[in-house]
């Protein structure tokens, strides 16, 4: 007989439950031996699959080369439409044709940019929203409480990898309330926290070598506005209206420009 909670236990194991349900399941598995055993098995299967599966670990180098050549050929053909027969009738060209084809190389660079850049950026979007939501939970919002930029800014020096723009815009309706260190994109990011009316605005900043920043977007009802200054990427996250969020963004950009002079 399987415990009725087994699917939820699995969802808990897969990190698919919200904090409340997760706590629920943790409490349940303290008393349910079957679910404890299930958690153990799930961990065992995962570890085995991740460590011991060897069958298809990496594509052979020849396949990689073949695909790059195909992309090269594809992109050197002018015009957006190509028929299916062309595709199935694909034949490898001599390597040098690909290697010295300027158009092809440019197209491969485009692939490298478009196919490679978004995966680096997209998880960041989710991380940003999660970090913003996490910050709204009790006692998570602020590490250093201060409305004084001369207190908040030096604090970052010791607690994060970056030193972002910090300024108070109380006059304009964006009150500096403090700062926080957060960890994402594999570094200690700085978060400056503002209050705008009843809304909290988290301004994340982290170092990035990528030339572009993600486009402004909305996830789970939270707006994310991105910009870049020097090698720092900034992202303001809030559930406030777009206009109001962008108002703060403009103020911060002005300060950056002013600082840079």
């Amino acid at each position: 007989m399987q415990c009725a909670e087994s699917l939820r236990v699995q969802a808990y194991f897969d990190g698919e439950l919200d904090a409340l349900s997760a706590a629920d399941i943790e409490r349940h598995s303290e008393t349910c031996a079957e679910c404890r055993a299930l958690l153990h098995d799930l961990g065992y299967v995962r570890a085995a699959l991740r460590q011991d599966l060897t069958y298809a670990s990496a594509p052979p180098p020849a396949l990689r080369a073949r695909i790059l050549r195909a992309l090269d050929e594809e992109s050197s053909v002018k015009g957006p439409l190509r028929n299916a027969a062309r595709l199935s009738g694909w034949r490898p060209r001599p390597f040098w044709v690909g290697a010295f084809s300027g158009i092809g190389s440019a197209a491969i660079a485009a692939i490298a940019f478009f196919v490679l850049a978004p995966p680096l950026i997209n998880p960041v979007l989710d991380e940003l929203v999660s970090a913003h939501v996490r910050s709204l939970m009790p006692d998570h919002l602020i590490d250093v409480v201060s409305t004084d930029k001369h207190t908040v800014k030096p604090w970052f020096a010791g607690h994060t990898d970056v030193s972002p723009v910090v300024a108070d815009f109380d006059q304009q309706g964006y009150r500096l309330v403090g700062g926080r260190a957060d960890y994402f994109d594999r570094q200690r990011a700085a978060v400056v926290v503002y209050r705008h009316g009843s809304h909290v605005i988290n301004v994340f900043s982290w170092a990035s070598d990528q030339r572009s920043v993600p486009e402004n977007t909305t996830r789970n009802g939270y707006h994310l506005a991105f910009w870049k200054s020097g090698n720092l990427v900034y992202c303001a996250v809030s559930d406030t209206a777009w206009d109001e969020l962008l108002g703060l963004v403009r103020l911060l950009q002005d300060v950056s420009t002013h600082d840079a002079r």
Partner: protein
Amino acid sequence: MLPHLDAAYRFARWLSRSGDADDIVQEAILRAFRGFDALRGSDVKAWLLTIVKNCHLTALQQQRRHASVPLPEEHDVQDGRAMIATTPDPESASIRRDEKRTLDRLMSGLPEEHREVLVLRELEEMDYREIAAVTNVPIGTVMSRLARARAALKTRWLKEAEGAPNAVR
């Protein structure tokens, strides 16, 4: 370059379990390249794997229609052997290597829909929503399939351990 190529290759390989995987991956990446304009803002990996899955299905249909047997490529022969071989080589086989072989074989024996969810969840670390998108089934189905796949793999592993105590320890 092309970091999702690894994921696409693993997925194609576990779906087709044959040398067709190479063609499937190439076709999928070319299709992705042509259709890239259509993608905005959503997850590139899930999108690419969805295309891999579609290419796999198309390849299956074509195979059935032509009833042709694809010629195995060289590394597939080796893979095939690795899949079948259960007796450890007394000279060099460590228990560890043997476990790996066993797991490959057990996994390969699972139904396709089980292999699929296990690869997406455990190897590609995708969440339920992404898996649902790639496999084109509701999230509830993803959850129950995943539960069945995990249980099936565990059961086979236990059976293996009972049947050949020396081989699996």
